[in-house]
C-alpha cells in the first residue's frame, strides 16, 4: 500500500467484546464468563493486510470469527463498508456473507472428506448464486487455476491432496463469491516450512489480482512481518499495541510486544549469540479471571504500582501507533522512548535500564 493516499476503511471494529458464559453449580447457573475478546478496536483499510498476532488463548481467532459474525457478539460494533453488522440477524447476515470469507487453519478439518474438490469449491456458488451447472463448473475451473490447482483433480477428494494443496482448496472456496474481505485464521500454521512460503506467496498474488483485504491471524511473527502492512498484538483479550509494520518491529512500545519479538529465535547462530532475550516469567492468566488493572501486570518486567490499580487507556501515542501501557502516560517515559527510538532498535542494555527504572518508579 502506498503511503500518503487517504485510506478507505473497509472494516471498522469498535470496542468489540466476545464473552462466553461459564455455567456451574447444581442449577447450572451462570457463574462467570470467559472474556475471550474484551473491548478491541481497529480498522482495516481497503486492500491492506492487518496482521493479528498473539499467543494461544489470547483471543485472536475469536476476534476474527466475531468480526465475521460467526458468533453473537456480546457488545461493540463491527462495520463492513460502513454497515454495522454486529446485531444483524442470521437471515440478514446471509446477504453480506459473500463479501466476507474465511480461510481456516486446518485444511483437513475444514474440508468435507465426502465431497469432491469441485463440489467443495462450488458450494458457496450453490448457496448464494443461481448460475447454471455449466457456469458453475467454469467458475470452479477458473478458481482452481487462480490458486494453482490442476483442473484434472476437480473430481478428487480432499484426502488425495497434500496439506499445502488442501489449503489451496480452502482458499479457492473462500474466493468463489468474489469477497472483498478475507479472515485468514492461521492459514499456514499446519504446513511445512517450504510449503508455507508457497501459500503466503499465493495469498499475496491473489490480493493483488482481486484487490482483497486480509485480516491475517498468526502466531508466526516473522511471517506476519512479511505479509502485513499493519500489525496488532493481542494479549488476554485486548489489543496491547497496533502500529504500522516497521514501527512495530523496529521500535515496539509495549513491554509485551518487546518480549514477544525478542522471544522469536533467529535462524542465524552469530545473531542468536548476541541477542539478549526478555524472558517472561510465568504463564498467561485465565481470561475468566483477568488481573485487576493492566492485563499484563502479572508478567510485565517493567510493572509499576499504577499498573496493578488502573487499566491503561488504549490510545494513539504516535501517528498510527496505538498502545495501552502506563509507561506511555507521563512525560519521562515518552522522553525515554524517544532516546530509544533515536538509537534505532533499543539495545539490550538499554532495555535492562528501562526495566530497572520501570521498577524504581
Amino acid at each position, binding site marked *: 500500500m502506498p503511503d500518503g493516499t487517504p485510506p478507505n476503511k473497509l472494516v471498522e471494529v469498535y470496542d468489540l467484546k466476545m464473552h462466553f458464559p461459564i455455567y456451574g453449580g447444581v442449577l447450572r447457573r451462570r457463574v462467570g464468563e470467559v472474556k475471550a475478546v474484551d473491548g478491541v478496536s481497529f480498522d482495516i483499510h481497503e486492500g491492506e493486510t492487518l496482521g493479528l498476532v498473539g*499467543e*494461544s488463548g489470547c483471543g485472536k481467532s475469536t476476534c476474527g470469527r466475531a468480526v465475521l459474525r460467526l458468533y453473537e457478539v456480546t457488545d461493540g460494533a463491527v462495520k463492513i463498508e460502513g454497515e454495522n453488522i454486529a446485531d444483524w440477524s442470521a437471515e440478514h447476515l446471509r446477504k453480506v456473507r459473500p463479501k466476507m470469507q474465511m480461510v481456516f487453519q486446518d485444511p483437513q478439518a475444514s474440508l468435507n472428506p465426502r465431497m469432491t474438490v469441485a463440489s467443495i469449491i462450488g458450494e458457496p456458488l450453490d448457496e448464494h448464486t443461481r448460475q447454471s451447472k455449466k457456469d458453475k463448473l467454469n467458475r470452479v475451473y477458473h478458481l482452481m487455476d487462480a490458486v494453482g490447482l490442476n483442473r484434472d483433480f476437480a473430481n478428487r477428494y480432499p484426502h488425495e491432496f*497434500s496439506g*499445502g494443496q488442501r489449503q489451496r482448496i480452502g482458499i479457492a472456496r473462500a474466493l468463489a463469491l468474489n469477497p472483498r474481505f478475507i479472515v485468514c485464521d492461521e492459514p499456514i500454521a499446519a504446513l*511445512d*516450512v*517450504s510449503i*508455507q*512460503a*508457497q501459500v*503466503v*506467496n499465493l495469498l*499475496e498474488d491473489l490480493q493483488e489480482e482481486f484487490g482483497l483485504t486480509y485480516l491475517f491471524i498468526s*502466531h508466526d*511473527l*516473522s*511471517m506476519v*512481518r*512479511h505479509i502485513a502492512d499493519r500489525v496488532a498484538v493481542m494479549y488476554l483479550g485486548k489489543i496491547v499495541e497496533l502500529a504500522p509494520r516497521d514501527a512495530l*518491529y523496529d521500535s515496539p512500545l509495549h513491554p509485551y510486544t518487546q*518480549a*514477544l*519479538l*525478542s*522471544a*522469536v*529465535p*533467529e*535462524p*542465524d*547462530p*552469530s*545473531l*542468536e549469540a548476541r541477542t539478549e*532475550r526478555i*524472558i*517472561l516469567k510465568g*504463564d*498467561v492468566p485465565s481470561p475468566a479471571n483477568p488481573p485487576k488493572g493492566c492485563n499484563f501486570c502479572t508478567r510485565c518486567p517493567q510493572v509499576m504500582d499504577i499498573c496493578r490499580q488502573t487499566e491503561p487507556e488504549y490510545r494513539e501515542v504516535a501517528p498510527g501507533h496505538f498502545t495501552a501501557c502506563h509507561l506511555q502516560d507521563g512525560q519521562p517515559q515518552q522522553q525515554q522512548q524517544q532516546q530509544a527510538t533515536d538509537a534505532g*532498535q533499543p539495545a539490550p542494555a538499554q532495555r535492562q535500564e528501562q526495566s530497572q527504572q520501570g521498577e524504581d518508579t
Partner: protein
Amino acid sequence: MPDGQLPVLDVRDLKTVFRTRRGEVHAVNSVSFDLKPGELLGVVGESGSGKSVTMMSLIGLLPSPPAEVRDGQVLFGDNDLLKADEDTLRAIRGARIGFVFQDPMTSLNPVFTVGYQLMEPLRKHMGLNKKAARARAQELLELVGIPDAGRRLKDYPHQFSGGMRQRVMIAIALACDPEVLIADEPTTALDVTIQAQILELVKELRQKLGMAIVWITHDLGVIAGIADRVMVMYGGQIVEHAPVKELFGNPQHPYTRALLGTVPAMHGTREARLRVIEGQPPVLDAPPAACPFRARCTHSFERCERENPPRIPVGPLHDAACFWNPATGGPRDA
C-alpha cells in the same frame, strides 16, 4: 566440542521400512551419525523427512509391524541396541536414554498425578523407596523451575499449563540422570515466550548435568540458538551435516540453502517475495536410486537422476550429499 572423544551413541547405516497395504515406505535410508558426550546435536527436517522415525528406531519405540528396522547398528556403550532383547532395552529406555516428546498432554497419563509419573522411573530403574523417590521427584520439579514443587506433585497433568507440562516431561526424562536425552520437537506445541523459557532451561540444564542431547525440530531458529552440530534430513536421508555456525554460514546442499531462504527475516531488509521450494516432498515407496531432492532442486543435472549422492566431505567436519558445488556452480568432483 572436543574431538576424538568416544561417542556415547554411534548409529551406522540405519534403515527403517514401514510395510503398509499399499507397499513399503522407506522412511529411513542408511542414516549414520554419532553423538559425543555433552554435545547437542540438532536434527532438522520437514514432516516425513524421517527425523522422528530415525530416533524412534534407535530404541525400539516403533510398533512392529508395520515398522521394521531392516539394517544397521546402534552402538550404545557395549550394546548394539538393534540386537538387544526387550529386557535390556527396557532397562536403557527412560534410564540411560531419556525422551521428551512434542505434545506433553498426550505423553503424560491423565489419570495419574505428576508425582506418581515422576516417581515411577525412579522406583523401577533406580530402586528408590517411596520416600526417597518423592524427595528426588520434588528436587527434579525444582530443577526444571516449577514453583511450589512439593505441592504440585499431587496435581494431575491437566492442572498444569502447556509450558509447565513440558517442564514436567523434561523432569521425567531427566529423572534417572540419562547419558542421552532425545527431544522430539519439544517446543513446537508451545508459544514463543514459553518456548524461550524452555530453551533457556535446557541451556542451563546442559551446563549443570552435561548429558548429550539430540534435538529434533523443523524450526531453524531454535536450532541456531542451541545446537553444536546440525544434521539436515530430507527424504529419509541425511543430506547435510556440519557444526552449527558452518551450516548456517556456509550451507552446501541446495535443500539447506533453499530452506534457509524460505524463512522470512525478523530484522533488516524485508524481501518483496518469499523464496519457495517448488513441488512436494518425495514419495518414499522404493529404496532411493537417485537424489531424493532432484525433482525440486534448481541445480540438478543428469547424474542426480542416475545416482543417489553419498555424503561427500566439503570442509572440516562438514559433509553434504550432493553432486553440485555451490562454489563453482558446477558438478563436484566425487
